[in-house]
Structures are given as structure tokens and as C-alpha cells.
């Protein structure tokens, strides 16, 4: 039994079937990437796993328990946290308050304290900016805050939806280095990326999503070498 396993998941928005029976597995300690073009259903998959959207059918098994359809706060308290697409920091709360909200589900003050220490050591810029409203940060800083905020809940599985969206290449490199570092500290990572090359480069395994279905599965390396994936998602390198 895998650590996190999605079985035949279906998600609909009214009459539109966004996800049509996808299955995937994430083992403990892995980095797994979902790639696919716009509208393939990557964000819908992530939002469904996080409990923001209720699936029409299928199972989401986390540590052998089916959490499909559970509400977001319950999913967070079980150890799966999503850093959503588009960062979505709370613009009028300070950086510190944003992190504090990230730890909303944490009861133990020692865990909370450790979370802040970890956030400030991984992202020193956030310490400098801690009293500033999050809305005044640059895009890259906001993305770092979004990741740091998600980490504050001390998750076992960290889900990152398009962490490189709209960022300068040099910052994207920083973000991917940090993802590797976070994974190295023992957090399992499920990543959604349009920047397929970089994402597959740090991934153990990857899934390719196309119009709500999984069309390729493989290790990061295999997918990078596959002609179809190369042509469709890697810009034909």
C-alpha cells in the first residue's frame, strides 16, 4: 500500500468532467510531479486532494484511510498541505501573521516554534520582512512565503501547485533548490509544474496529465527521455 494513493478519481464542474478517472501513487519520501498543459486538470487534482473540491467518484487513500471528500481543514490536520497556485498569500496580513496562519492547525507550541525557526532558516528574507504586509513582497518572495506558510503545518505531504509560475529564471532555480532541500529533510512532495524540465529533473517519478486523464507514467528520467513528452512538454529539446 502506497503512502498516498489516488484511485480512479473523477471530478466534475457541473456538466464538465475535469478529471476522468486518474490513479496515481506517491511513496513516502518521494518527489512526484504532475505535468500537463493548461486545462489538463492538474490544479483540479491538487485542489481535490487538498479537500477544496469534492470528487464525483474515486478514492484518495492516505496512510490507508480514504480521505476523498473530506474538508480541507481535516486534510491539513492529517498531514497533507497544499501551497496553492498563484501563491494566495494573505495580502494584508504581515509575513509573520501569514506564517502564523500556516500553523493554524498546529496545537503544540513547540512544533509551532520549530516551524518559525525552520521557515526563517530556509527563507532568511522572510525574517527580514516579517512585519511587512505580504502584499508588498515581490513575486518571488511571495512564493517563498507561500511555501514556508504551507510548511508551518508540519506536513507529511507537501503539495506545491506551480511554484515557478510567473517568476524570473534565477528565482525559479532558487525555488527548485529549496524544494529539493525540503524533500531532503523528510517531507514527501507532490508537485504540479508547467516547467516540466526542471520539475522532472528533481522528481523520482512523474505523471503526464492530458484532458483529465493520465497518459504517461515513469521515472523523472524516463519521461525526460520520452519523445512524446519531449515534444509536447519540454519544447522539443
Amino acid at each position, binding site marked *: 500500500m502506497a503512502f498516498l494513493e489516488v484511485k480512479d478519481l473523477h471530478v466534475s464542474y457541473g456538466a464538465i468532467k475535469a478529471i476522468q478517472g486518474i490513479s496515481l501513487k506517491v511513496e513516502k519520501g518521494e518527489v512526484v510531479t504532475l505535468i500537463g498543459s493548461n486545462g489538463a486538470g492538474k490544479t483540479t487534482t491538487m485542489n481535490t486532494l*487538498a*479537500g*477544496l473540491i469534492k470528487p464525483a467518484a474515486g478514492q484518495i487513500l492516505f496512510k490507508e484511510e480514504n480521505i476523498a471528500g473530506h*474538508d*480541507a*481543514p481535516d486534510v*491539513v*490536520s492529517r498531514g497533507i*498541505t*497544499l501551497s*496553492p497556485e*498563484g501563491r*494566495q*498569500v*494573505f*495580502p*494584508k*496580513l504581515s509575513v509573520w*501573521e501569514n506564517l*502564523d*496562519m*500556516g500553523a*493554524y*492547525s498546529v496545537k503544540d507550541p513547540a512544533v509551532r516554534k520549530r516551524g518559525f525557526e525552520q521557515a526563517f532558516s530556509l527563507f532568511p528574507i522572510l525574517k527580514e520582512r516579517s512585519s511587512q504586509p505580504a*502584499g508588498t513582497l515581490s513575486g518571488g518572495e511571495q512564493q517563498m512565503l507561500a511555501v514556508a*506558510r*504551507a510548511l508551518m*503545518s508540519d506536513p507529511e505531504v507537501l503539495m506545491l501547485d506551480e511554484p515557478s509560475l510567473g517568476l524570473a529564471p534565477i528565482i525559479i532555480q532558487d525555488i527548485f533548490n529549496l524544494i529539493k532541500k525540503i524533500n531532503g529533510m523528510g517531507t514527501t512532495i507532490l508537485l504540479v509544474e508547467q516547467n516540466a524540465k526542471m520539475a522532472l529533473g528533481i522528481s523520482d517519478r512523474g505523471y503526464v496529465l492530458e484532458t483529465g486523464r493520465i497518459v504517461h507514467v515513469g521515472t523523472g528520467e524516463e519521461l525526460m527521455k520520452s519523445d512524446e513528452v519531449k515534444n509536447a512538454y519540454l519544447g522539443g529539446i
Partner: protein
Amino acid sequence: MFFQQMINGLTIGSTYALVAIGFSMVFGVLELTNFANGSFYILGAYLTLTFMNAMRGNFYVAFAISIIGTGLVGALMDRLTLRPMRKKGAPGIAAVIATIGFSEIINNFALVFFGTETKPFPNIFKVGKIRLGGAIITYLQIIIFVVALVLMLVLSLMVYKTKVGKAMRATAQNTSAARLMGINVNHIITLTFFIGTLLAAVAGTLVAMYVESVSVGLASAISMKTFAAAVLGGVGSLPGAMVGGILLGLVETIVAGYISSGYRDAIAFIILILVLIFRPAGLFGQKTQAKV
């Protein structure tokens, strides 16, 4: 004369501020224009009066039961009507209509249970007054002002300093991100309605005692005025609601004192419109940020 008008205006304005704060809190969290506040205001006054009569004049206990009871009615309005609409993704205007409907229901029940005539309300603080430079300040005026000020202070501390207050602000700024933090958004919304409605009940009781009467007819005027006060200050801003409420009270009283009480409401709204022409976001409002 001017000083006296200022004191009277400050008294009534601070009660508008209380209702406007409740309005603004709900608006902040749900972007909902809640038109039921005027009804909660009179309901608070009626319930205080009823429990006071039932308990042979024990104002404090009656007051406590009334404001908590009214707060629960507000929370119930959300549970019964607004939450099911949110769940189904109803457009915002549907919720606004629901608050108007709920308001009419309360007003109708109030007419049936408490009567159509204006009810006298006892002023239990008719114990004294202070003379200050030609003006008279009654103890009740001081009490109203102090209660309003303390409540505003307590609320500000709650909203800006406590965990639940931060969760309220987080929910107001981005509901789905708040859910991802583990915040139970429905609880936060219920609490926001409870507090907002409770504030209206406090204001309603204090003003009923101040003018020594209460009637159902007040409800819609109060809804409109406190809506106006919140818009004047900048909708969604707590300091804005406070200043907006107090300004509206001052303008009203000064117009009534120097021009004519007949023009009171008209002039108050003319000033509101003028302010909004020059500062569309209100005095304390920021340009609206699109919700992500």
C-alpha cells in the same frame, strides 16, 4: 449650544458606529451587504425590555440574555438561509435579498409580539448629569459612549491580536487559502454574524434607553444609516466604520440643531454622496482588491 450638539451627536454616532462595525465585519468576511442589522437592533431593544419586565427590572441580566439571544438569531440567519446558498454557489445578490427577507420576518414578528405602537423604554440611568461649559452631559450619554468605546477597543484587539481574529481577517482576504490553512471557515462566519448581530442589539438597547422608546419603524432607517456609515468610512474597514458612524451622528445632530430636524436625514445622505464622489472607497477604504 454647539458643544451640546457635539455631545449629543457623539452619543448617537457611537451607537451607529457599533452597528456599522458589525456590518463591516460581515462584509469583510463574506462581501455580503447585510440589511438585517436594523431588525437585530430593534430585536435587541425589545428583548431587553421583555426580559426586564419578566425579571422585575433586572436590567443587566435582561441585557445579557437579550444581546446573546439576538446574536444567536443572527448566527441562525446565516445557518438557515445564507450557508445553504453559499454551498450552492448562489450569486451574491441572492444573499442580500435573503437578509432583507429575514429582516422583514423579524420586523413582522416584532409587530405581532410587541405591538404596532411605540413602546416606552425605561431609562434606568436617569440618576444625574454633569454640566460642562454650558452643556449638559447625562450619565446615560457617558455610559453609551464608554460602552461603545470599550466594545470597539475589545473588538479591535480581538480582530488584530488574537488567533481567531487573524483567522477572520485571513478568511476575509482569501477564503480558499484560509481553508487550506486548516481554518474552519464556517465557524468563523458564524462567529462573525454572532458578533455583528450582538453589536446591533447592544446599540439598539442603548438607544432605546436614550430616547426612552422603541418601535419597529426604526429598523429600516437604522439599516440604511449604518450601511451609509460603513460606506462613508470605507466598507470592510473597522476604523472606517467607527469614524463613519460617529461622523454620521455628528452631522445629523448638527443639521437637526442648526437647520431643521426635518432635513436631518436628507442632509446626512447628501454629505455621504458628496464624500463618495470625491473618495469612492470611503474615508478609510483602500482601492478594492480583486479576490483571488
